[in-house]
């Protein structure tokens, strides 16, 4: 079973995403701030991380930067309400694989998740 780590400080959003992903057959780990996210990213070894940008204490951008700095290549999709181009560019430059702006449709998010996972799987097994 594929595992997704959701790093989101908003309880309602966490529940909605957790239920949605569980229904789609994912195993879900939840973190409510950046520090917990960093810890679980190492402990749970998820297949994908959904990372909110505006988190208390450590922002999502810093979490992403730290993970990439530590050599963690897990696919990351940033979730944010900040839709300005500079924010998207910065997120992607820091190592995110995709960027979804709130409010988003769950099916669109799932499609992006599948696409990112597909990309990662194909890059990990060249020639198949």
């Amino acid at each position, binding site marked *: 079973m594929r595992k997704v780590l959701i790093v989101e400080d908003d309880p309602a959003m966490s529940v909605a995403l957790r*239920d949605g992903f569980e229904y789609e057959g994912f195993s879900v780990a939840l973190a409510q701030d950046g520090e917990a996210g960093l810890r679980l990213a190492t402990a749970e070894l998820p297949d994908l991380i959904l990372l909110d940008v505006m988190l208390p204490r450590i922002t999502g951008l810093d979490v992403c930067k730290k993970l990439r700095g530590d050599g963690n290549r897990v696919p990351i999709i940033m979730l944010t309400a900040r*839709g300005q181009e500079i924010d998207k560019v910065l997120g992607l430059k820091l190592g995110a694989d995709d960027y979804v702006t*709130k409010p988003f449709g769950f099916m669109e998010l799932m499609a992006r998740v599948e696409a990112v996972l597909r990309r990662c799987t194909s890059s990990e097994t060249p020639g198949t």
Partner: protein
Amino acid sequence: MKLGRPLHRQTLWIGLVAVLVPLLILLGLQYRWLVKLDSTSALAQQATLSNYLEAVTSEVQYFYSGVAERGLNLPASVFTQNRLDKAAHYFKKKGVAGAKRLFVVNFVEGKDGYPFFFEPSCASLALPPWSPEVRATYVAAAPWRILAQKGGVVEPVTFKIDERDPEYRILLYPITDESSKVVGLAGMILDEAFFEEVVLPAAVAKSLPKLSPGSRGHLDPIVSAWDAKGRLAFMSDWSAKRKGAHPEIQKHLPFVFSDWTIGIASRHATAAQVARKNFLLNIGLSVALALALLGGIVLALRTASREMKLSEMKSDFVSNVSHELRTPLASIRVFGELLRLGRVESPEKAREYGEYIETESRRLGRREHLLHPSAHRSAGGRGRRRARRSFRRPERGLRCAKC
């Protein structure tokens, strides 16, 4: 997201330095020019005063030259035909100014060169009894007497001043015949009181217009003269004596009364003081101007910096407001979508989603004021204050809203 801020601050500093450096260079250059101007203007004013003094001494010389040419230029026939009465008549008619005594000396053959003094009361020339005055005249005429005895020629004819005895300053005018041989002398013993009271003041007054009109105003010189014994004999403004005005330039009179000293001083300040005052005034004005300019620039840069900060805060605020509104919206949308897709298996779950949707909707309603802070003014100051706080400190506003 925060990359622009250091860049903005750097731009402000670069702007400040870009203005400050040329301004300092300009001030430095101006200081150098003013220092140069300071020394040259002091010299120029010294030169002006010196020129004025020259003009005064020239006026004195001009006066006595005129007197000699007009009053002592007797016809040679007075001596060749021994018509001294004509000379007396001539002296009476001309009325020679500035003479304490007029006399003639006859060198025509047979005469011994003894002086004849003019008596104004009876308008005649007579041989005076031996006296220091006669001796001085006799001694002064001696070189001419020798020249006449030798039949020497005088060309061109010029008058001479003999000041060997300061008591009797003598002006001698040689009279020559048609072959330029000296036949006699016409002379005068100078009246020192006349020189002091009439000639010198007139020369000073006449020379004033020769000062350049621009410099006269602030120089307004005071001329003083000291006699051979060092007595202050003349001052163009005696009231300045109390102030102890010290002459900046002093010199001996070059032509007559050559043991007298004449000096000149600026009335208000010396040339160096005037130049220094000008220098300080100019540099003071420049520094004041530079400071005013710098103050203006600093104020402008400060305003620009504040505007930048405000703009950044606005941007942050909009971003945070966006987050505050979009997050509940996103939750509501996902819950709605899960319900629509039939992914809710139990009624408890549906109720839970309903509660979340309701809570998130209320949260959205509470945050509506973030979009229209002014709408809350009429409802009381609380909303406005909160909105202002949220605007100033977006992080705090955000935290409150999350609670």
